[in-house]
C-alpha cells in the first residue's frame, strides 16, 4: 500500500482519531466440559455464569473452578460447562442439599411448634441471603439427583406443607422479597376450609414463578399401615392409591400444572407408597427425616428438616447441612 498515505483525507489539528488496538480473543479454548476465557473489564463471576451457563446463581461454581481469585481484566479464567464431578462427591466429603419444611405462619406468637412467627421466618430468610445460601427449586434438586444439572454450593430448598392461608398472607411476600422459590404441598380436602389457601391464591402464587404447588395427599392420613389384623395388603394399596391419584387430578385441573412431587403426610413413607409413586412417574417424594440430601439419595425418600416455631437462628443453622465431611482419599 505504497500510495496509502496520499489517499488519507486531509487532517486538521483539531481532529481526534481513535485507533483501536486489536482486542485479544475472549475465548482461549473450548471443549464440551469447559471454556477458558479472558476476563473482560466489568466481568464478575455472576456475569460469567449468566453468559456461559445461562444462570447467574451458578456464580460460585465458576468462582470455585478458579479458586475464588479476584477477576483481573485479561486474566484467563475457566468456566466449567459441566459439573466437575456431577455426584458432588470429593476427597474431603460430599455436597448435600437441605430441604426446609414449614407449615403455618403467624404475625403474633404461638405455642404451637408447627406455627412459625413472621419475624422468625423473616430472620431465617435474611440469614440465608446474608450467608450466601442459594435457594433452589425442587426441579433444580432433581437435576442434582440425576446428575443432569450442576447446582450452586450451599443450595437449600424451601417447602411449606398443608396449604394454610398464612403461607400466602405471611410467607409468600417474604419469599418474594428475597426472590426465593418454594414449593407448597397441599392436601386437597383441606382446600375450601376456613384457614386454607384458595385456588385463586394458589394460582396467583404459581403465576409469579416463585411458588410451585404440589401434592400432599387427599386427606392427610398417614401412610403408615395399620397393624396387620386391621388393614390387609390390598386394602392398604387401595388406600395409598386413593390418597395419591385424586389430588393429582384436582391440582392439575385447578392449577393447570403438572404434579410430579409428593410430600408424605406426617413424613411417613412406605415401600408400597414408593413403588406406587414410581409407577405413577412421580419425580420426588419427601419425608421429614432430618438431614441434607446427597446426590445419591433416593428421590422418592428425600430428607427434610422441619423448622419449628421456636427455632432460634442457632437451631436454624444446624439444619443447613450443605456439605458432609468425610475422608475419601
Amino acid at each position, binding site marked *: 500500500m505504497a500510495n496509502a498515505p496520499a489517499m488519507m483525507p486531509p487532517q*486538521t*489539528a483539531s*481532529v*481526534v*482519531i*481513535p*485507533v*483501536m*488496538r486489536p482486542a485479544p480473543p*475472549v475465548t*482461549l*479454548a473450548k*471443549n464440551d*466440559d*469447559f471454556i477458558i476465557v*479472558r476476563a*473482560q473489564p466489568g466481568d464478575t463471576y455472576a456475569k460469567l455464569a449468566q453468559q456461559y451457563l445461562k444462570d447467574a446463581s451458578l456464580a460460585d461454581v465458576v468462582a*470455585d473452578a478458579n*479458586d*475464588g*481469585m479476584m477477576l*483481573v*481484566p*485479561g*486474566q*484467563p479464567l*475457566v468456566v466449567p460447562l459441566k*459439573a*466437575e*464431578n*456431577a*455426584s458432588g*462427591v*470429593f*476427597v474431603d466429603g*460430599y455436597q448435600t442439599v437441605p430441604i426446609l419444611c414449614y*407449615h403455618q405462619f403467624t404475625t403474633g406468637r404461638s405455642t404451637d*411448634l*408447627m406455627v412459625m412467627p413472621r419475624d422468625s421466618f423473616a430472620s431465617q430468610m435474611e440469614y440465608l441471603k446474608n450467608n450466601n445460601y442459594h435457594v433452589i427449586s425442587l426441579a433444580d434438586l432433581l437435576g442434582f439427583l440425576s*446428575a443432569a444439572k450442576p447446582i450452586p*454450593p450451599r443450595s437449600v430448598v424451601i417447602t411449606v406443607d398443608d396449604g394454610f392461608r398464612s403461607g400466602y398472607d405471611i410467607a409468600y411476600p417474604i419469599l418474594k422479597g428475597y426472590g426465593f422459590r418454594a414449593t407448597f404441598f397441599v392436601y386437597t380436602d383441606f382446600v375450601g376450609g376456613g384457614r386454607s389457601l384458595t385456588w385463586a391464591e394458589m394460582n396467583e402464587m404459581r403465576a409469579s414463578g416463585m411458588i410451585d404447588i404440589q401434592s400432599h395427599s387427599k386427606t392427610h392420613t398417614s401412610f*403408615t399401615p*395399620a397393624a396387620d389384623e386391621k388393614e390387609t395388603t390390598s386394602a392398604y394399596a387401595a388406600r395409598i392409591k386413593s390418597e395419591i391419584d385424586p389430588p393429582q387430578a384436582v391440582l392439575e385441573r385447578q392449577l393447570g400444572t403438572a404434579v410430579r412431587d409428593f410430600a408424605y*403426610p*406426617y413424613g*411417613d413413607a412406605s*415401600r408400597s407408597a414408593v413403588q406406587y409413586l414410581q409407577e405413577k412417574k412421580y419425580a420426588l417424594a419427601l*419425608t*421429614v*427425616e432430618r438431614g441434607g440430601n*446427597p*446426590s*445419591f*439419595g*433416593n428421590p422418592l*425418600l428425600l430428607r427434610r428438616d*422441619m423448622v419449628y416455631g421456636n427455632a432460634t437462628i442457632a437451631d436454624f443453622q444446624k439444619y443447613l447441612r450443605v456439605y458432609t465431611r*468425610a475422608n*475419601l*482419599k
Partner: protein
Amino acid sequence: MRLTSRRLLVLPIAAFMTACAGMPNAPAMLVASVPPPPPAPPPAPAPSAPAQFIADQRSEARQLEMSGMLARARLHWRYVMALTERDEEAAREIARLDALIKTRRDAALAQGEAAMMRGRTADAQTAFLKALALDGSNEQARRRLIELETSAAFVRQDRKDVRTRAQRAAGSESPEN
C-alpha cells in the same frame, strides 16, 4: 466448600501487567496534529497471561495430586492441553492419572462390594464414596449408594412406624406433619 490446594491466587506482577496491557478495545487516542507525536515504543515483551496461566495449571495439578485429588489434578492438566497445540507432558500426565484413577476406583469398588457381601454397610458406603470421588460418573458406585440410602431410609421408617402405632394406641400423634 470443596477442598482446594489454594484459595486465593495472587497473580505474578508480570502477568498482571501483561493482562492490563492486553485489555481489549482499549482506545489509544491519537491526536492528529502537526507535528505528529512519535509513536509510542512497543511494550517490552513479557510472558503472556495464557503462558503464566498454563504454568500455574501445571503447578496446581502437581499440588493437587500430592494432596490426593487425582480427578482435579487431571482436570488441570486438561486445561493445559486445551491451551496448547500438543503438550507432551500434559498428555503423559493425563494418561498416567487415567490409569491411576482407574486402578484406585476399581479397588474401591471391589472393597465396597466385599463390604456389602459381609453386611458392613458403613464400610461399603465409604468405599463407594471413594469410587465416586475418583470418578463422579461411575454408575456402579452411584447405584450401590442409592441402595444403601434406600435401605437405611426404610429401616428408619420401620422404627418410626412402630412409634406411630404406639402413639395411635395411646391416642396421641407425632407433631411431625
